[in-house]
């Protein structure tokens, strides 16, 4: 069932993202052309097209957020909700589907933006620079041993979990906002800010209560060479990962509970 | 075949009357097979259960019979149909006489008016 939900969710959102991606690539190519020609009389069009390129990238970022909010709100909490919630699927499947599709577009947006920038910027000079960068970074990573690659993996995982966690926070906030009949948006934004505040408070509490242990650990650690510091990095990242995971799970269960028990479609 | 159903009388008894009419007037001839309950209900725009009830009543009265696998049929007993036809006709006549009497005509006047009007109709 989740697969079917995913299929339609992707269809619904692809109509927005794919054209934007296509536009981005087109302008990347246009900009590349301008840069290659580098003619004075083309200066104004060049500036315009460069600006448009930036606007599109910003647009893609903004769109990812807008679509996340709008799909959840429209498909589940407005008239379409009458269809969504009478489908023979588990409630949490709806949440799973939407957050996975959001993640997918977030990742794709980053990849497409990176590719378009690369396409624009790549020439003999930059290729040499990139080669030099990798020839320095990879040995450095190797020196750190397996820890280096673990760190890279953790960073990627953290990025994924953070995106999902933030998305779930947004969903939870929207669902809370929907409970009010007159001030949905205000309540939703308020809930989101509250979540942020709560996260900060808990983080501060954790850090201050463990500050003693943390200090001791780093003191002890500084006596060791670099690879040990990589271990520290690993642990820190692991900590952040768990932190994000816990909050993400909390938002997930909150949203699921509200949709199952407190749903009241107008 | 318009089904004329009034709103203040039970539907099923009106259906019984109308189907009787269809049978005695020969639209559903003796021995013929009736359409399915669902089709008849659809034609009359009524609930199939109500139609079923009406048909069951007519079976009880002997105007219809059903065979498990083949469906419902009008009875082949032509006499029985004639009897029903006659009793319906008598009912109409009695009503007519009563109405004429309410208008103020006596038996003799009613009969002559009836004959005269029938002549003109030719």
């Amino acid at each position, binding site marked *: 069932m989740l697969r*079917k939900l995913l*299929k339609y969710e992707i269809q*619904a959102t692809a*109509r927005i993202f794919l054209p934007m991606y296509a536009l981005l690539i087109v302008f990347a190519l246009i900009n590349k052309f301008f840069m290659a020609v580098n003619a004075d009389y083309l200066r104004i069009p060049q500036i315009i097209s460069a600006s448009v390129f930036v606007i599109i990238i910003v647009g893609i970022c903004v769109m990812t957020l807008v679509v996340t909010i709008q799909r959840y709100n429209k498909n589940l909490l407005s008239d379409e909700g009458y269809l969504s919630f*009478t489908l023979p699927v588990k409630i949490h499947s709806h949440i799973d589907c939407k957050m996975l599709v959001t993640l997918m577009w977030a990742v794709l947006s980053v990849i497409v933006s990176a590719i378009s920038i690369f396409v624009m910027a790549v020439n003999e000079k930059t290729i040499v620079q990139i080669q030099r960068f990798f020839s320095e970074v990879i040995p450095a990573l190797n020196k750190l041993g397996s820890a280096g690659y673990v760190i890279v993996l953790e960073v990627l995982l953290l990025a994924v979990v953070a995106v999902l966690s933030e998305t779930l926070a947004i969903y939870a906030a929207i669902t809370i906002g929907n409970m009010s009949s007159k001030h949905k948006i205000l309540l939703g934004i308020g809930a989101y800010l509250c979540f942020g505040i709560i996260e900060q408070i808990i983080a501060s509490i954790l850090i201050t209560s463990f500050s003693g242990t943390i200090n001791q650990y780093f003191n002890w650690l500084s006596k060791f060479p670099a690879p040990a510091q990589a271990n520290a990095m690993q642990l820190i990242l692991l900590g952040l990962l768990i932190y994000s995971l816990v909050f993400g799970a909390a938002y997930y269960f909150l949203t699921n509970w509200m949709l199952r028990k407190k749903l009241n479609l107008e | 075949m318009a089904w004329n159903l009034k709103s*203040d009388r*039970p539907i099923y008894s009106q259906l019984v009357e109308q189907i009787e009419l269809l049978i005695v007037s020969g639209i559903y001839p003796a021995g013929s097979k009736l359409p399915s309950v669902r089709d008849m209900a659809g034609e*009359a*725009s*009524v609930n199939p259960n109500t139609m079923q009830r009406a048909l069951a009543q007519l079976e009880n009265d002997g105007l219809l019979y059903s065979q498990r696998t083949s469906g419902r049929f009008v009875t082949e007993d032509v006499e029985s149909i004639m009897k029903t036809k006659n009793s319906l006709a008598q009912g109409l006549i009695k009503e007519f006489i009563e109405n004429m009497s309410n208008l103020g005509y006596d038996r003799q006047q009613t009969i002559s008016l009836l004959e005269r009007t029938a002549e003109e109709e030719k």
Partner: protein
Amino acid sequence: MENILECQNLVKFFPGCLALNSVNLAVPKGRIVGLLGPNGSGKSTMIKLANGLITPTSGKILINGMEPGIETKKIVSYLPERTYLNDWMNVNNIIDFFGDFYQDFNKQKAYDMLRRLGVDPALRLKTMSKGTKEKVQLILVMSREAELYLLDEPIGGVDPAARDYILDTIISNYSENATILISTHLIADVEKVLDEVIFINQGNIVLVSTVDDIREKENKSVDALFREVFKC
């Protein structure tokens, strides 16, 4: 399981409003039932509860003996009062959608009905008039071979010719294993099609009877009785 829908001491309380006041009801299979009552009487609340869209404050509502959940959603076909279709699909898409999610969806039937009602399947839902959207929704709902159909005001916004077609569809969709529950104000149009009616007012069941019993006992149509009972 004899009853397709059962309410046991069902209570639904909203802030400031008692929508259903300990309702007890049993609707058997193979019936076409009218749920009749003025606005705000609790009809829509009961239907939403049956669909699992809202949860009871206390008491139970059972579909084929089960509480609302995935298993009941598989056998219930719901037509809400509002249009619930999304914008971006066309009719073909939404038919595929229903076919994907509901095992009992009959695509051929849906296309037949679309043709009879003159709806072009390539049309985008966004561009349709309200009346056409309502027809499409009704077709989608009636093309399922469900065990319980919950129709909330199915003939309200439709022209009289389509209305007749819809009532005929309801009659021909009848099966001994299915029940159709129609919630409506347009009682006169629908009366002949109903087995039974349920009068509901302010969260309480006021009357449960067959249409013919009412006509026999009261010598008036259900519509006329309704106007009497719910006189303003």
